[in-house]
């Protein structure tokens, strides 16, 4: 099987999926319901993406899961008080790297 053909076809499926809502609402006129759904969805999707990031964490199997939990709590607390997303991410990532490389090995 030609790997370049596969890449091309996978790309085609992916871009089609991304285009679907724009094809359905082609004229740009979005009904009130869909527009409200569009407003609500980011909040639901974002928390789902957080769950997606930690879906493989298993505290019973491995202590490494504690690193995820602690680092996420650190991120929440720092971001709640400091409100600077870059600072939050930097501190959170460093905390996580230290935890996973030196503490919960």
């Amino acid at each position, binding site marked *: 099987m030609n790997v370049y053909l596969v890449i091309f076809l996978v790309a085609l499926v992916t871009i089609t999926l991304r285009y679907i809502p*724009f094809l359905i609402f082609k004229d740009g006129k979005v009904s009130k319901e869909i527009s409200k759904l*569009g407003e609500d969805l*980011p909040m639901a999707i974002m928390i789902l993406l957080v769950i997606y990031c930690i879906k493989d964490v298993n505290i019973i199997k491995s202590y490494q899961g504690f690193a995820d939990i602690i680092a996420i709590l650190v991120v929440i607390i720092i971001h709640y008080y400091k409100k600077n997303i870059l600072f939050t*991410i930097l501190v959170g990532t460093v905390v996580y790297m230290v935890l*996973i490389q030196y503490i919960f090995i």
Partner: protein
Amino acid sequence: MNIVNFKKAFVLTIPVFLGYIFLGMAFGILVVTNGFSIDVSFLSSSLIYAGSMQFALMAFLKENASLISILVMTFFINSRHMFYGLSLVERYNNMGKLKPYMIFSLTDETYALICSLKGKKDYENNSILFLISLLNQIYWVIGGLIGSIVGSVIPFNATGIDFAMTALFVSIVVDQYRNSEDHFPFYVGILSGIICLIIFKANNFLLPSLILSVLILIIRNKKL
């Protein structure tokens, strides 16, 4: 396109920069260790531009999966992207010539960053939105190229640096929660996520939980 917009877009994309460079490198390394050349890394990151799908594709190719099964898996892995555009239809219709690229480059992280600007002045600025999308993809492609070139020789222990992505999503959730009076969608997301995680397990829960969230939100909005 001016330098002020570029600076703004660059600062906004730094978290994605960290995540994409290193995840991209991981992908690039995977490509060469699976016996493919650097152009496979470049073409995948340029044309497919969907992280988890690219990793899965390498596994499929290694296992000699059939073309049909690869394409069906692509559909399921990336189907969550169908929902992203819903929040951006009206905004992206005002992007003119940039619209096709904006839609093409709508990854999880780009979607997250652009939604986080809603209600702010920068959200109305076409060139900032475009630069965010473009820079993110450049980071991803460059990460893949570096990974393919250096192979498995990384100068320092970068284990855990991909947490930048989790941290980005978590901070956006905190912002959304703080800036919104209606927290219902947040709880809908958590609840459907946990329910579907239990029923469908870690590898398949995302699409069902998205569909469940959409259904609950539609039902609620009908009642309002």
